[in-house]
């Protein structure tokens, strides 16, 4: 073996060579401005974590992991220095030291052999590349919903997670809440008879999460943000404040609007109750109100009708008051509705007095979403929201988006994951990437 071969990945990146070389799959990256410290000696038996993307949701997830006694967050990474600084301070404050390493480039963090798991809190257009790279680097992964930015990317992510035998947990945390599980178990065990329809009510509009809506003027990006890196694989667009943090989700090139933001929650629960977690719809049609002008171009109001091979129809809607927010399964003998805040309702009401008996189907019981991930990292058990399930939860969203954009019904084969008889729609299953970024299919 040559000396080069003995060089570990971390060393490889640190001496600079790795930065250039890795850019085939990944772009030539900004020289390491990074201040990575060598990892402090850790108390044994802790799961070491790196958090990639520590803005809004990423920090929220990180804070949840910081509460777990057997997790040690050792590094954070973001292309926004303000986010990075804030996250580092949170970690250091929690542990009472100055040991948290910071990275500008996720590839450097992934190159650390002493990191067991990563938490990804990134915009949708950045979901696939770091996830696949993390799997390839042997890390277990906590990732956000929607699982992917396109159906093909999602399949590639599933393949990578499977190929490298990684534990994956998606941020579809409703699965770890008792009311959602109980509702799903009641449905799964036939307590409302055969389900013929499910109504999935999602939010509508473009919520101004960042308070930047309307700040569309193109300007020089702020110095704390490496905007080119932030845009990454998406088609290039000049910087405007309204495009980035939190509100990126209202632009199709970065996110998928309320539909994709929520499909990994309430539709995911719909699938769970029906046992359709490993398949997808066969027919999809819908209508979306896409703004004709302005920077935000995701649908503000939408209604998608999907049919599955079992005959069940799932309606996904945002902005239609008759479709109540949450998940409502409607069966031959009644209905069950679940939503956040522990809410569960049913007709007849007596359904809710039912118990799930030992011989019934018992769905996965998680002690807490973030806790479940860590437990599974240790036991190697599949997590409650694994990659394949998350991919299948995102699928009706991706297909619904295509059907709405084309304003026509599409037919889908969930086994081969191909759209049938519509070449134009088929082409929309995958997004090309700006060079030098690329996804390993």
């Amino acid at each position: 073996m040559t000396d080069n071969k003995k060089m570990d990945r971390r060393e490889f990146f640190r001496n600079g060579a790795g930065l250039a070389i890795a850019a085939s799959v990944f772009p030539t990256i900004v020289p390491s401005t990074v201040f990575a410290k060598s990892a402090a000696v850790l108390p044994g038996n802790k799961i070491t974590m790196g958090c990639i993307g520590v803005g809004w949701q990423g920090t929220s997830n990180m804070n949840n992991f910081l509460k777990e006694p057997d997790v040690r967050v050792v590094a954070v990474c973001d292309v926004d220095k303000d986010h990075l600084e804030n996250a580092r301070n949170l970690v250091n404050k929690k542990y009472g030291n100055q040991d948290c390493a910071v990275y500008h480039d996720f590839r450097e963090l992934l190159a650390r052999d002493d990191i067991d798991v990563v938490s990804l809190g990134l915009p949708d257009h950045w979901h696939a590349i770091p996830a696949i790279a993390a799997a390839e680097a042997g890390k277990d992964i906590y990732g956000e919903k929607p699982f992917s930015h396109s159906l093909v990317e999602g399949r590639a992510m599933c393949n990578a997670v499977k190929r490298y035998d990684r534990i994956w947990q998606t941020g579809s945390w409703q699965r770890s809440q008792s009311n959602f599980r109980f509702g799903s178990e009641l449905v799964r065990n036939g307590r409302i008879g055969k389900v013929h329809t499910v109504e999935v009510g999602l939010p509508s509009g473009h919520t101004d999460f960042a308070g930047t809506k309307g700040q569309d003027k193109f300007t020089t990006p702020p110095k704390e943000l490496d905007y080119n890196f932030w845009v990454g694989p998406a088609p290039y667009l000049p910087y405007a404040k309204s495009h980035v943090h939190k509100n990126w989700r209202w632009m199709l090139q970065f996110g998928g609007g309320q539909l994709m933001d929520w499909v990994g929650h309430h539709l995911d629960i719909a699938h769970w109750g029906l046992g359709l977690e490993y398949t997808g719809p066969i027919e999809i049609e819908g209508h979306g109100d896409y703004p004709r002008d302005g920077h935000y171009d995701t649908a503000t109001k939408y209604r998608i009708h999907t049919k599955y091979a079992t005959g069940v129809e799932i309606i996904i809607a945002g902005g239609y008051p008759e479709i109540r927010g949450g998940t409502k399964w409607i069966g031959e003998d009644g209905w069950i509705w679940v939503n956040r805040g522990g809410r569960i309702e049913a007709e007849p009401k007596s359904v809710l007095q039912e118990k799930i008996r030992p011989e019934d189907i018992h769905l996965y019981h998680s002690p807490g979403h973030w806790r479940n991930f860590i437990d599974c990292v240790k036991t190697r058990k599949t997590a409650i929201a694994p990659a394949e399930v998350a991919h299948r939860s995102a699928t009706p969203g991706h297909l619904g988006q295509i059907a709405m954009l084309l304003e026509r019904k599409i037919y889908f084969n969930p086994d081969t994951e191909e759209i049938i008889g519509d070449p134009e729609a088929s082409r929309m299953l995958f997004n090309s990437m700006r060079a030098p970024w690329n996804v390993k299919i």
Partner: protein
Amino acid sequence: MNQKSNSRIFVIALVCLLTFSFINVTVASAASQKVDLHKIDKLLKKIRKYKFGDSREKLTELSAVLRSAGNSPDVLLQIERRFDNFLNSKATFAGKQFICHKLSLIGSEASVPTLSKLLVDPKTSDMARYALERIPGAKVNETLVAALSQTSGKTRIGIINSLGVRKDAMAISTLGQFVSDSDAATATAALAALGNIAQPDAASILENAIATTSGQVRVTALASYLKVADNLTASGKLKDAISVYEKLVGPDVPASIRVAAFRGQFKADGDGAGSYLLKVIKYGDPQVKKVAIQLVRELPQKDRLGQIAAELPNLCPKNKVQLITALADVGDHSVRDVVLKATTDENKNVRLAAIKALASLGEVVDVELLAKIAASADRDESGAASESLSLLRGNDVDQTIIMAIPSADAKVKVALINSLGARDATSAVDNLLKSTNDPDQKVSKASIKVLAELASPKYMPQLLDVLVNCKSDAERNDAIMTVTNVAHKISDEKNQAADVIAKLEQVQDKDARIALLRVLGKVGDEHALPILKKALRNEDQDVQIAAIRALSDWPTANPINDLLQIAKTSTNTRNQVLALRGFIRLIKLESDRPEKESIALYQQAMALAKNAGEKRMVLSGLGELRTVAALNAAMGYLPNDELKTEAEMASFKIVRRLRRDHPKDARKALQKIISTTKNESLKKDAEKELQRIK
């Protein structure tokens, strides 16, 4: 040529032109819709000047026209020609990028010549690839390959990526030329593209790269080689696949690749998978061993499961936990004995995993063991055992638990009784009624509680007997809840308290009567209201208090005036305070009452409140409203030091509900809160809320 001739030619030309235009500008799509090509031309003219940030109206309009074109190849070709012309024009970058996106959806090989020009220009290469990657046909691949020699750096890497995305097997040898490129980024891109293509033809190139490169380039070569093997497995060439996997499990291969190769080998190994897994679990390195254990769940045949389970004692605690969890997921009872032994392992995590595994692997004979652990002092193990006991499957499990109760010690009895509740073991009701008389109060209380879940209304007489015969307040409180719960199961919702009322007529014991009154309040059957109102006038103060409490528990606001009357007139402080609290609670209940009436009721309550506790309850209730009047009422208490904190919280809660409809009032209230509050957290939240209104 004279002027007349000129005119004639002009007319003929005009006619021809119009005829030609007519033929060409309106074409029918497959959906029999007319596609207005003139409109497309007009829009393209506008889009030619489109810059990022301009109005998207024209882009949206073009998209709409394209949608109406449907799938007809003839129509699409005519549109495509127009797009080609557009891309060859001096249109803006943003305009061209948009049209390339449209071509990516409808384009054909006819666009390739135009796109190939954009492809080799670093400024426009990405947008050309966006289109080309999605256009089918060998011509696209040829163009991409040809462009490699005309480009360099990032542009060329993009093209290499596109060949990978298109899985172009014909490009393997060309890509092979770049795997040893002096630019490491290019070499890695080529190797990754070969991984995407994943054809056996790339094997020798990849093997050579693995042998001659280092660092990330080598890792990419290894990962791509792995994908070749996976592809061989998928196409049924298992022997070939295994021979590749075998090359990827060596010590000089990074652990993640080794793990994946091991997995691949396992999946391709068919009949030999079990013995292979066993070997790795016995002798493998820690990384691979961990994955081998994980793969126990995917064993195609279970014949090796026993041998694998037998390895459990030889593993480290971490691996033991992993193997036990995997065995539990497999759910094959043949390995139960091994898991059973692990419940006494010296490592607590191992014990816990084994106890949990008994939920799926355990049998009826394990009831006793699980009950004992459930009764043990260790909370984790106790909890795990209770869970397993509640999930244990088998026809005889419920009966075995019931039979075990009488002879068990008190703690174990409690565990067994609780498990019956969790198991919905309705056959246990008669036995549980007996154990409500158990001399140990923990046992009797547990029985009473579980009866709430298991007993049906037909047991109401026995449950009422239990209630009136309770030996302690603690038991009685549980019995009140149990009787209430079972009464609510009565399908005739208007007569749920009939048995309770009848019992009240028979019972003389004061404590029992008080307990029955409490049940009446919680059940909320209208037939009970006169009884409770009468009890308010009972000469015994304890009975009065029970009646006030019962009315305070009433599920609707019906008795609100009775409570208000007592709150206003009672000379007994305790009665007055209890009635006032009940009154405030009933105002909060859902009703059709207009909000201004609720505000008036709260103001009455505030006037009657003599201490801070009740005043705070009033403010908490006000905070649930959503009108400007409610906001003003809550804000009115801000100057009161004693109530300031609750007034701020209530006002803030109301503001959040009405800010959309009443932004001015909301803003004013928030500004007031921000300027006066000493609660930093509330101040921050109020500032955020104010930001939203602005």
